[in-house]
């Protein structure tokens, strides 16, 4: 299946959904545009552009040959997925374990298991980074980070 074509269909669906929702918000009267007026136009515009890209995938040589496999060729894409998953884990862990523990864990896991750095580097760099960042943000912003069940910062 042509990858660019599928992506254009996704954008079309997005634009159409926005335009449809905008009808509910109300387009307003001529002299007084309603809440839905601007997003309705923007939604239709996205749809129109998506249709053009869709049609281009039949004519344009480069777009014609686009496949998912080609876009991810040679890249270590599983590493990108790991980063996203670990970040989600970090967000969820933060409220339970607290900011400090979950941040250090995130960095140690990435550095040691994804990047295969030495244990020393994988522990020293995260601890220093987290401490400095925490001090900077809490000093400048007077903010408190989640302490978690351990009560550490």
């Amino acid at each position, binding site marked *: 299946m042509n*990858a660019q074509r599928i*992506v254009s269909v996704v*954008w079309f669906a*997005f*634009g159409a959904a*926005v335009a449809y*929702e905008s009808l509910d*918000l*109300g387009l307003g*009267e*001529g*002299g*007084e*545009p309603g*809440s839905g*007026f*601007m*997003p309705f136009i*923007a*939604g239709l*515009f*996205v749809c129109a*552009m998506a249709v053009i*890209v869709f049609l*281009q995938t039949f004519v344009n040589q480069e777009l014609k040959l*686009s496949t998912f496999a080609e*876009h991810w060729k040679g*890249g*270590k*894409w599983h*590493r*990108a997925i790991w*980063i*996203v998953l670990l*970040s*989600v884990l*970090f*967000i969820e862990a*933060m*409220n339970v374990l607290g*900011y400090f523990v979950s*941040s250090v864990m*995130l*960095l140690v896991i*990435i*550095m040691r298991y*994804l*990047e295969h*750095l030495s244990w020393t580097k994988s522990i020293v760099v*995260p601890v220093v*980074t*987290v401490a400095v*960042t*925490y001090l900077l*943000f809490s000093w*400048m*912003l*007077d*903010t408190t*980070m989640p302490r978690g069940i351990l009560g550490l910062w």
Partner: protein
Amino acid sequence: MDLIDNIVMGFSVAFQWYNLLFCFVGVLIGTLIGVLPGLGPVGTMAILLPITFGISPVTAIVMLAGIYYGAQYGGSTTSILVGIPGEASSVVTTLDGYEMAKQGRAGPALGIAAFGSFIAGTLGIVGLMLMSAPLVKFALKFGPAEYFSLMVMGLVILTFLAQKSMVKALMMAGVGLILGLVGLDNMTGLPRFILGNAELLDGIGIAPLAMGLFGISEILLNVEQEIKRSVLVKRVKNLLPNKEDWKQSTGPIARGTLIGFLVGILPGGGTVLSSFLSYAVEKRVSRHPERFGKGAIEGVAGPEASNNAASQAGFIPLLSLGIPASAVMGILLGALMIHGVQPGPLLMKNEPTLFWGVVASMYIGNIMLLVLNLPLIGIWVRLLSVPYSVLFPIILFIALTGAYVVNNSTLDLYLMLGFGVIGYLMRKFEYEPAPLILAYVLAPLLEISLRQSLIISGGDPSIFVTRPISLFFIVVSALLVISAVVPAIRSRRQEIVAQAEEEV
């Protein structure tokens, strides 16, 4: 004499110790991220935006602006010493800069890049000071219809200059408009597209959006690749260009400054295009074009001057009209609004300390940058040997912390991550994020001026074409769109892009 009074006032603001400090922090961070490939000024400014909430708007803009023009200096160091661009705007510098380094002339290459940047940056600021006031006078004649058409033109120019497909870029502008309208409608009080989430009533924050699209997506793309850097020169000597170098560089620096300034004012033009243009011009006017790509100092001096002049000129539309010309300026506009400063032609009059303080700080910042990038070049060379495997986890972590502290909200973290994934996919399929972020920032302004115009005209859309200034903007936009569609011109546009790519 007004101008001199204002300049004096500006410097008195810029010389306050905390403004000096934050100016230094800004240009330092700018150089840092400029040197490091894989993190651009947009992402960095977005990540650091939350830090500025606690300080005054002048100080905040001084620092954020410093990051931007500082990155133009830093980017050249990596281009010259490693042969890969530290920033998109120093892509062309790799051609002759890296060649010079290979021939053992890294010193003069770095030297002329820094001096050229300094000269162009300073002249750019002078232009900024001289041009802003007349532009403001002109802009004060604008009603909502003119503003609407001007913003439309800005978006169209930005998409016209898109490196790949203009249709895709236009589509991204549409998506940005939609994202910018999420939240409560200020005029009717209706919530829009909040998907049942009360936290979205305030809209999608600029910090998670920009950090996701520019910061996180960049990391995701980079970790897929094996990034290997080898620094060519461990110790840089003879930074001062000799007489012959100067003789060859004066013309390119002057032309580069002019090109950069003119391109920089254009919406969407910016630093990348200006450096390409300057390189092309230098190659054409040179009596020995065959030297280009083999270590010609003109190929470093011109583009490096050009991207700095462009970065300063980019402030003109933002500070005098309240309209950002690029994604970076969009972030600055966001920062102004977060601090309760109303951008627009009245900014110069209502917030003179902000305008003149920021402008004056740029002079000081440029001097700091000259020091940071010449005598202290050794630090940056050493920094280049820090591997990406250590750097990116730290960048990721700072982004996660930054996105969280704005509202202490987990939702913001998920938004950032979500936009990171979307941005990653967008780049894979060649959809550019810059029009999206710019349209997102402009969306509320665009909507208000559209509504006001239609209320004034009683719902008659012809208001946009019956008022002369507005008509002019609309005609320019229409011509650009048409020219992109007409096959003959389209192929010429692609030719130019292809040629630029080939020359690089």
